């Protein structure tokens, strides 16, 4: 039997069905093209970057003469020549540092040569004279008035109107949340827990490192081929920064080999464009080594959280006060909005009547903190979800029941004053407690092991400007196959498959007839803000649905005219126009390009069918800068729960996670199995993140920027069982009710593990990363105390 798939597969009405991914055959056969796989011929040049060895220093002089003398070197560009800044929310980052280096690894210059080896060698010959300055690495220290000032020019930076930097300090954003009256609430609390929680910087670790190729042509046309979650945002930011007309800058982005937020916005890509400008007519390739990937692209921000929460004797949450200090790293162009999201969602998924929240983004002399899967939520949930367990314990309530009572529910007025759109958290809690066997006694597998169960819940809203747009085009081919054009990116999450399912369902054609036009190319693809924020199924889905409905309407009008019937009596079923009134049928083939002839071929009607659609939320309002209150803070929230069953070896401190059970309210599962793959992969990503940390020495130099010393989960580390489930409470403005779930699936895994460890050992860990060593030492300390 040949393994060739039958071409007769025919899936009608594919929404809600686990159809095969449109990119699957490409990806298992080796045919899928990633950016580094593109061929540019012998004219291709290669670039390497010269990076600062100091965490904080003034750049006094750059001498590139020895590098330029090397045979094969074509150009050297330094930050002293290119003085432009770039950024999304707060435009604070030079493409190459010119006056001041703010972290170890910051690019100060770039070298272009005929080969990567020559570029690498020449980069060593660029002589940079620095004057070292005092550096600061901890976000709380950096927020103090006497801390070394990292951005003395902050007051001059352009900033969007919902971010509030504090010039003269290292605070790039301060979000204030004030609700109710906490002072009068504390005395009414029967239990109060107050503690500090810390998370280190971690990295996305996509298996595909960042890579960008750029070409400037003498005509002024510029192309950037790049592995990007945000081709359109990259075009916008780079065009503005380098004063290129948007129409002259073309960003092409094939399949992305893992993003997780690290390939959102602009990191190293602008360097490639600036370097290519120096050697016009030659494409220039800049590819990150794994070491550069760790410290020279972006990382997840660190966090120090000081949090106090109280409840009454019946377990009703009454008050919360919290300070979040996000360690934003050297540049916060994207990170300011993470601190903002941490602020307007600062309670986690709970209904708390009295809240004081202060969320700060703080500059530090470390790698650039930026978007990572969860966007501030994994960070804040780490502390919140451990405190909730402690409160439940103090008042003698079951941890799951405590959450059922206090979690946000449909119609609640949440902390920003917004009414909570329809969701069902309680159903998610019920599903995971049932799946994990909550409350059942289970013996450990050996006498020296301890077993524990933990639960954690989460919420997350898409964090973005109020008005990010999506657009889509649906066009037919002669044989009635369909091309869907989108600007959303396929990162592995299944965006292209969802686009094809949505188009097929809305048109009334089989799924197998739909192709997704790729790669995303800003010259030809319709606009999409960014593939981030778990917004694509919802926002792009709406745009594709609108485009398909537009195309469908054109077809029905042509056929109705031809049959002399009403459009309302016609439908498209399985690729045929049918009339419920006359029971006539008309295949789409040919009709969708050539139209239909009039009687006796006396003229024609119709013509090539091309539908277009868009979606943009229009209802989000800015919030009061002093209270964080407003009518509509965000578009919506996705909620979910996780429960973990694990064992700890008390002789080694080793943790074995036996099972993770997850459930999320997805609104509508467009492709149920793709949701399960997100849930499974996310649970492992979340689990891995609990054991990860970028480490630095006292001078801010990275210690572990490689895959041996910075370990991510491997095939032998992952649980035997990951149980996934979902709830479908429709989202008012989602396609068939769908909302996003791609990031949520890892948000609360680390605190669920911490709660399970506490269940097993009665030991709390406030600081990440966890490690066997840390657990062993805590057990040892307790043994000695006894």
């Amino acid at each position, binding site marked *: 039997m040949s393994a*060739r798939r039958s071409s007769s597969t025919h899936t009608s009405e594919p929404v809600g069905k686990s159809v095969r*991914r449109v990119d699957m055959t490409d990806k298992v056969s080796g045919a899928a093209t990633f950016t*580094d796989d593109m061929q540019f011929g012998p004219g291709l040049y290669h670039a390497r970057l010269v990076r600062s060895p100091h965490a904080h220093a003034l750049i006094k002089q750059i001498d590139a003469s020895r590098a330029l003398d090397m045979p094969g070197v074509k150009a050297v560009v330094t930050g002293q020549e290119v003085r432009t800044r770039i950024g999304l929310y707060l435009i604070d980052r030079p493409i190459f540092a010119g006056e001041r280096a703010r972290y170890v690894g910051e690019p100060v210059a770039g070298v272009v040569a005929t080969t990567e080896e020559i570029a690498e060698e020449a980069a060593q010959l660029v002589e940079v004279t620095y004057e070292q300055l005092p550096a600061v690495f901890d976000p709380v220290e950096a927020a103090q008035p006497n801390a070394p000032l990292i951005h003395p020019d902050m007051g001059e930076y352009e900033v969007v109107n919902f971010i509030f930097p504090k010039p003269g300090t290292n605070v790039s954003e301060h979000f204030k949340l004030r609700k109710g009256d906490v002072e009068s609430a504390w005395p009414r609390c029967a239990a109060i827990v107050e503690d500090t929680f810390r998370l280190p910087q971690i990295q996305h670790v996509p298996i595909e*490192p960042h890579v960008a190729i750029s070409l400037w042509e003498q005509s002024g046309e510029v192309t950037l081929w790049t592995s990007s979650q945000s081709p359109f945002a990259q075009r916008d930011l780079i065009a503005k920064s380098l004063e290129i007309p948007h129409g002259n800058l073309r960003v092409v982005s094939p399949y992305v080999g893992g993003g997780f937020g690290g390939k959102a916005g602009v990191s190293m890509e602008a360097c490639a464009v600036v370097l290519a400008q120096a050697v016009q007519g030659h494409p220039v390739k800049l590819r990150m080594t794994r070491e550069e990937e760790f410290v020279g692209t972006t990382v997840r921000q660190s966090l120090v959280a000081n949090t106090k929460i109280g409840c009454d004797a019946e377990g009703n949450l009454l008050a919360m006060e919290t300070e979040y200090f996000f360690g934003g790293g050297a540049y916060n162009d994207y990170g300011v909005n993470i601190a903002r999201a941490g602020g307007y969602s600062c309670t986690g998924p709970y209904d708390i009547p009295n809240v004081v929240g202060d969320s700060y983004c703080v500059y530090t002399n470390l790698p650039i903190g930026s978007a990572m899967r969860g966007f501030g939520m994994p960070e804040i949930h780490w502390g919140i979800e451990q405190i909730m367990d402690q409160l439940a314990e103090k008042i003698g309530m079951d941890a799951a029941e405590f959450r059922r009572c206090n979690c946000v529910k449909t119609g609640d007025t949440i902390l920003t004053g917004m009414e909570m759109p329809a969701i069902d958290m309680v159903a998610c809690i019920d599903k995971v407690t049932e799946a994990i066997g909550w409350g059942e006694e289970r013996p450990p597998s050996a006498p020296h092991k301890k077993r524990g169960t933990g639960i954690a819940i989460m919420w997350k809203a898409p964090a973005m400007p109020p008005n990010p747009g999506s657009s889509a085009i649906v066009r037919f081919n002669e044989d009635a196959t369909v091309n869907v054009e989108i600007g959303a990116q396929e990162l592995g999450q299944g965006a292209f498959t969802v686009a094809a399912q949505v188009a097929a369902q809305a048109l009334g054609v089989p799924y197998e007839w739909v192709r997704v036009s790729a790669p995303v190319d800003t010259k030809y693809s319709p606009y999409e803000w960014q593939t981030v924020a778990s917004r694509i199924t919802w926002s792009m889905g709406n745009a594709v649905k609108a485009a398909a409905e537009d195309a469908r309407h054109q077809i029905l009008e042509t056929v109705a005219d031809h049959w002399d019937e009403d459009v309302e009596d016609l439908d498209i079923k399985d690729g045929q126009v049918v009339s419920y009134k006359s029971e006539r049928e008309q295949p789409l083939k040919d009709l969708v390009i050539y139209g239909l002839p009039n009687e006796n071929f006396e003229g024609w009607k119709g013509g090539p069918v091309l539908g277009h659609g868009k979606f943009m939320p229009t209802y989000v309002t800015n919030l009061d800068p002093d209270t964080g209150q407003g009518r509509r803070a965000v578009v919506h929230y996705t909620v979910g729960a996780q429960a973990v069953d694990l064992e700890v070896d008390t002789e080694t401190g080793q943790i074995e996670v036996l099972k993770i059970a997850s459930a999320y309210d997805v609104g509508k599962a467009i492709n149920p199995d793709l949701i399960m793959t997100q849930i*499974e992969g996310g649970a492992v990503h979340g689990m891995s993140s609990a054991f990860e940390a970028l480490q630095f020495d006292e001078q801010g130099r990275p210690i572990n920027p490689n*895959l041996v010393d910075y370990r991510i989960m491997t*095939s032998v580390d992952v649980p035997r069982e*990951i149980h996934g489930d979902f709830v479908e409470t429709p989202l008012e403005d989602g396609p068939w009710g769908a909302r996003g779930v791609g990031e949520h699936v890892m948000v609360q895994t680390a605190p669920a593990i911490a709660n399970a460890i506490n269940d097993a050992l009665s030991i709390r860990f406030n600081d990440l990363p966890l490690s066997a060593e840390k657990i062993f030492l805590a057990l040892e300390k307790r043994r000695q105390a006894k």
Partner: protein
Amino acid sequence: MSMHTITVTVNGSREYLTVPSNMTLLQMLRDKLALTGTKNGCEAGECGACTVLVDGEPVNSCMMLAVEIDGHEVTTVEGLARLYDDEAELSPLQEAFAEHNAVQCGFCTPGMLISAHALLQRSAHPSEDEIREALVGNLCRCTGYLRIIQAVQAAADRTRGRSADTRSMSAKTAPKPAGVPFSGGAE
């Protein structure tokens, strides 16, 4: 940089190549032969994205020099299907990855497939633990590995099923280039 002329069989096709002495096998495959299915994830032998078969054994092609494979056989992801069936678009292993949705971004997939293929060649009935061990050098950040492990198990079951069906045994009946690893690998 001194240059060397080498003869190598890649996916059943004999190639004569001139390569510099410092060129890795990974660079040779990607830059000389445009076999870009084999991925570059770290160039340090840590991620497994560049795994290929050399004489049937899985190796990190970033850690091997092109000159070292003079006279040897290399199989990349592009050659996997033909190891089973000259007509096939996908091998049973690739098909199992597809059916189990064991792929997300797809960047680790070629290396994963090669490591899993090598395992199935040396062990027709691998246990779950054996599969996990065999894939430990192939990092994946998207899937959480479970679908991949399940896909390898399913492919093992399917290949066993195929063994009973002589009509479909094209891999064994078709003339195969010497050295291509059908005969059991290391054990």
